[in-house]
């Protein structure tokens, strides 16, 4: 049985549009009952966003859908993903209590620079997130 329990991988489409297998270490997941404790963008994405938007940002479609983040022009404005993460909208729950300002800005910058998105201008900052709470 233990053989089954290997480390986990997430597929990331990074800057030069090359698919990469990046191992995500989950050994430090589940560290706190009420907040996420991941620090880098890829880990934050993999531990919470990927639950709905899927591991490579492709989204999902059922009776309702989770929008794809790949090549998503809505990510052009930095404030848009920040606002959605803090406050939620429609099926998207508010994650403002699970993630702190630093984590939100980090994961927003990650999403805007990955999955075929190239929005590296107007980077999110913890201060900006704080001002939008």
């Amino acid at each position, binding site marked *: 049985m233990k053989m089954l*329990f290997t480390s986990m991988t997430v597929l990331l489409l990074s800057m030069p549009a090359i698919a990469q297998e990046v191992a995500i270490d989950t050994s430090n997941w589940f560290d706190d009952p009420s907040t996420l404790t991941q620090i880098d963008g890829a880990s934050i994405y993999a531990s*919470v966003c990927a*639950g709905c938007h899927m591991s490579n940002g492709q989204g999902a479609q059922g*009776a309702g859908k*989770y929008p794809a983040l790949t090549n998503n022009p809505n990510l052009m404005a930095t404030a848009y993903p920040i606002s959605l993460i803090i406050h939620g909208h429609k099926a998207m729950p508010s994650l403002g209590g699970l993630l702190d300002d630093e984590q939100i800005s980090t994961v927003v910058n990650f999403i805007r620079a990955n999955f075929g998105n190239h929005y590296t201008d107007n980077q999110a900052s913890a201060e900006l997130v704080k001002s939008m709470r």
Partner: protein
Amino acid sequence: MSFNPEGVTRRSFLGMVGAVAGAAAMYSAMSTMGFASPSNWRGRLNLQGAPDNTNILILGAGLAGMTAAFELRNAGYNVKILEYRDKAGGRCWTLRGGDSYTELGGSTQHIDFAEGNYFNPGPWRIPSDHFAVLDYCKRFGVKLEPFIQVNYNAYLHDSEAFNGQPQRFKEVASDFRGHVAELLAKVVDQTGLDQAVSTADAEKLVAALKRYGALNDNLEYVTGSESSKFRGWAHPEGGGVDGKPEPSQVNSLSDLLNSTLWRNLTAGDNLHMQSTIFQPVGGMDMIAKGFEEQVGELITYNAQVTRIRHEGDQVTASWVSTNSGGSEQTETADYCICTIPFSVLSQIDHDFSPRMSKIIDSMPYASAFKAGIEFKRRFWEEDEYIYGGISYTNLPITLISYPPYDMFSDGPGVLLAAYPWGAYSYQFNALSHEDRIAKVMEYGSQIHPQYYDEFKAGASVAWHRVPWSLGCYGLWKDREADYQDATAMDGRTLMAGEHISYLPAWMEGAVLSALDAVERLHTTITEA
């Protein structure tokens, strides 16, 4: 004490009713007076006099939708239901061996449980005051059995306390109660409580605390026969030569306080968990099947609603078949009861009022995660003498629930092996099914070391990945401000479902909201 104008107290009035008319009338009178009435179920509906050729369209064949269909059909309306899935029941759902489940993202699980074993990903227990659900079970012949919430032999576990060793509930409960009773008894006995307790009452309180806390004659909660009669013996009571028991060692108050074990001592005291509570024999979806037997012929399955429009005196839903695809079809009716979760409805092209649309758009659905794991044998019964009930832990799995059915049977059994909400559940959602089960095994094996040797099969449901609900239950952003408006007729549509209730996530909430919608709709129609 409240008096009516005739000067008869409530108690004396009830005494009179009881003496004259017997218990049934007394219960009825008590209910009318606001006692003994924890649900707002008002008894079975008996709607009559539906105008001829009045068509009602119901969106969603979960419990709310099927309740509405059953009552309206019985009243004489023409009823049709559109359902996205290929089966009825919605979140009243059970996974068994042979079932397959495809979550959002496309991952499919083929459930590999033995015959008779199952896992309820959604609702799993029915409080005894959820009268509406229980009454439909009775009417539809859905067999119920006790669900065991509190098991004194199950565990409380804190990975950071008692060397990570799970403690029996009976030990923690007895020790905590005993120490608290001792402290209070000493305060009362030695210093009195002045105004708070009269001298006469103080004596009675000390006597009560002695009994309540299993204190000795010195009002101490200590290792001895008094405490062991509650927390268990080190050497058990028996027969013959070896029959004399030896008391077990009590835990210190400090050790208990420095653990988190006290947090779940009152889990079974919560209003909705108080014994006796129930589950359907064979799986929660037996309730769904009971409803489906009644109204199944009214349901169009595999129908994905794509548009809702109110025009003139009619409401029209457009839908496409998720099976065959094909062109959009329409269903037009005089009125509509919409039970589609707002997480999904917010993404459907509709023409509800701006006010209703804003409420719909402001309700995401909660994250929750459950895993059911089948083991080759019932080691929790055979090795640890745990028969049903729930162990609680500070680990991310939150709890382990033992099957309250088929006890003492040989062969495999299924545990509810994880049921976290919040931050833990989000992380489980984001893992693949295989990785979720790996984590559940890693954590569960800290409580039951038999896990790895006895593993047989796992099932997992991350509610945010459930394709037809996108979450577990509706989260109000501002219920105080929005609730009443969400219950209002919008165009020719009434909303129903657990989200339109103050019993969120409970089946009773879904059913009560549907009964209320049906009554109001019938009144609207017949008084028009």
